[in-house]
């Protein structure tokens, strides 16, 4: 892994580079990162996560977490972005958790297979809170939160490609990232309504999406397709919330 990451550091665009450094530093031998959250914030947020299944991505979960961590209701002032902090924290911890999926990472398989498996692992990271995920999507669709949400989605795709051993530095990097983001976002949305045992329907949905685009070697998908999809998915979520748009 060390060799490709050196090449990448030299060749990838600046924006990807910052990410990569963070990744090489945090993902392997070191404890979880400061990331965008301070120690105090992380303490409260991680104490809030267990409350999400019953109280959702809400201020109540945040308050309950604060109390569990020895804080008080007023301490939620630490989060000017409100309950979106919970969404962001969930996205961040799930993304960083991918590097711990040793069974997948160490398997003797091709890049494409690993990408699929990691994507599936990531989706399963939503299992506990999937009945609340539409709340999270609605928060992510709020204009002030959109940049962070999109950045997280892109960073997650980068992470998955990187961990799978992809070292391409040509323009296909952008399309790969965009295609994976599209597939992930679509499947994630599908999963929120999936009632099948062990999410087999979601699994099949994901497989079909991967078949739609032949990743390895070929240039597939397009950024505009992805942006279009994200926008319409967001609209549908809003409509499902009763917003007239």
């Amino acid at each position, binding site marked *: 892994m060390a060799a490709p990451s050196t090449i990448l550091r030299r060749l990838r665009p600046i924006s990807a580079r910052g990410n990569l450094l963070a990744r090489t530093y945090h993902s392997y031998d070191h404890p979880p990162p400061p990331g965008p959250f*301070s120690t*105090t*914030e992380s303490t409260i947020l991680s104490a809030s996560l267990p409350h999400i299944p019953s109280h959702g991505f809400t*201020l*109540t979960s945040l*308050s*309950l977490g*604060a*109390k569990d*961590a*020895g*804080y*008080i*209701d*007023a*301490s*939620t*002032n*630490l*989060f*000017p972005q409100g309950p979106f902090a919970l969404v962001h924290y969930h996205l961040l911890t799930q993304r960083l958790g991918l590097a711990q999926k040793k069974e997948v990472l160490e398997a003797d398989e091709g890049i494409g297979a690993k990408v699929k498996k990691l994507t599936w692992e990531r989706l399963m990271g939503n299992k506990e809170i999937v009945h609340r995920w539409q709340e999270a999507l609605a928060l992510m669709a709020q204009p002030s939160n959109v940049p962070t949400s999109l950045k997280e989605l892109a960073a997650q795709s980068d992470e998955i490609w990187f961990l799978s051993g992809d070292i391409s530095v040509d323009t296909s990097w952008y399309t790969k990232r965009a295609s994976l983001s599209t597939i992930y976002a679509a499947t994630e949305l599908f999963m929120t309504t999936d009632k099948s045992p062990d999410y087999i329907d979601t699994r099949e949905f994901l497989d079909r999406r991967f078949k739609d685009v032949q990743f390895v070697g070929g240039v597939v998908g397009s950024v505009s397709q992805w942006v279009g999809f994200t926008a319409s998915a967001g609209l549908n979520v809003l409509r499902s919330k009763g917003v007239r748009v």
Partner: protein
Amino acid sequence: MATRTAFRPLVRAARPQLQSAQVHRCFTSTSQRAESPSQSTNHERTTHFGFETVAEAEKEARVAGVFSNVAASYDTMNDFMSLGIHRLWKDHFVRSINPGSSSTSPSPGWTMLDIAGGTGDIAFRLLDHCTNINNSPQSTITISDINPSMLSEGKKRSLATSYANSPRINWLVANAENLETIESDSIDLYTVAFGIRNFTNKEKALREAYRVLKPGGVFACLEFSGVTNPLFDAVYKRWSFGAIPLIGQLVAGDRASYQYLVESIEKFPKQEEFRDMIKEAGFVVPGKGWEDLTGGIAAIHKGIKPAGTP
């Protein structure tokens, strides 16, 4: 454009007060004393009074003087300085704090302390939010100010609200730098709006805030700050330094007090510096530590007292 619209109603409001300038001047006797030549000797600690450097003890007297002078017309002053929008800032300030919120219902209520609470402007808003938004009529507030005449103005105004003689309000004359009658670790929320720049020893006031707050409690400050856009800054400075003392003279017959107000704002530490002072006192700050309002004319700073540390 904004200045002009803010200016017009104020000038109109100012006119009838011209006749009462005489009355206001009688008030100034306190500050007359304070403005007598400084007897500061070399070993006395000094501080800023606007752009003048004065002995600390004297500043306290002078600040008290300024606010006695302008107690009655200080709303007008806030209107001038904020281009007429300090009420919106105050609403936003309170909404951003979300006082009275709770994970349990009914809410056990927040114990709040509004420092430099003068006229109760912030306190009434905090209580309203607790009651109407968070269904927390158990929340209470202590309104504190160094100046008894500001507090009596506040009491008078409270009679016109639903909090007339309410047991939810407690009035306290105290210097923010020494809140000895308030127990340590007893307060959920400490607010100070347009007050801290007048404190002689801001670090000491911050340490007191830290002491009285519960672990996890919130320090929240609304104050004039540094305009971030240089062009807007230049325009705003011309307005505040050029026009406001003059208007002060016309409205209250008291140029010196208004000159002080303008200068004290300019002297107050800028956003980053004040954020660092808050951290220095032991608080953790959310995000970058502050939120600019109207291009930085004012800013909201917050700090949370960490739990689990003595």
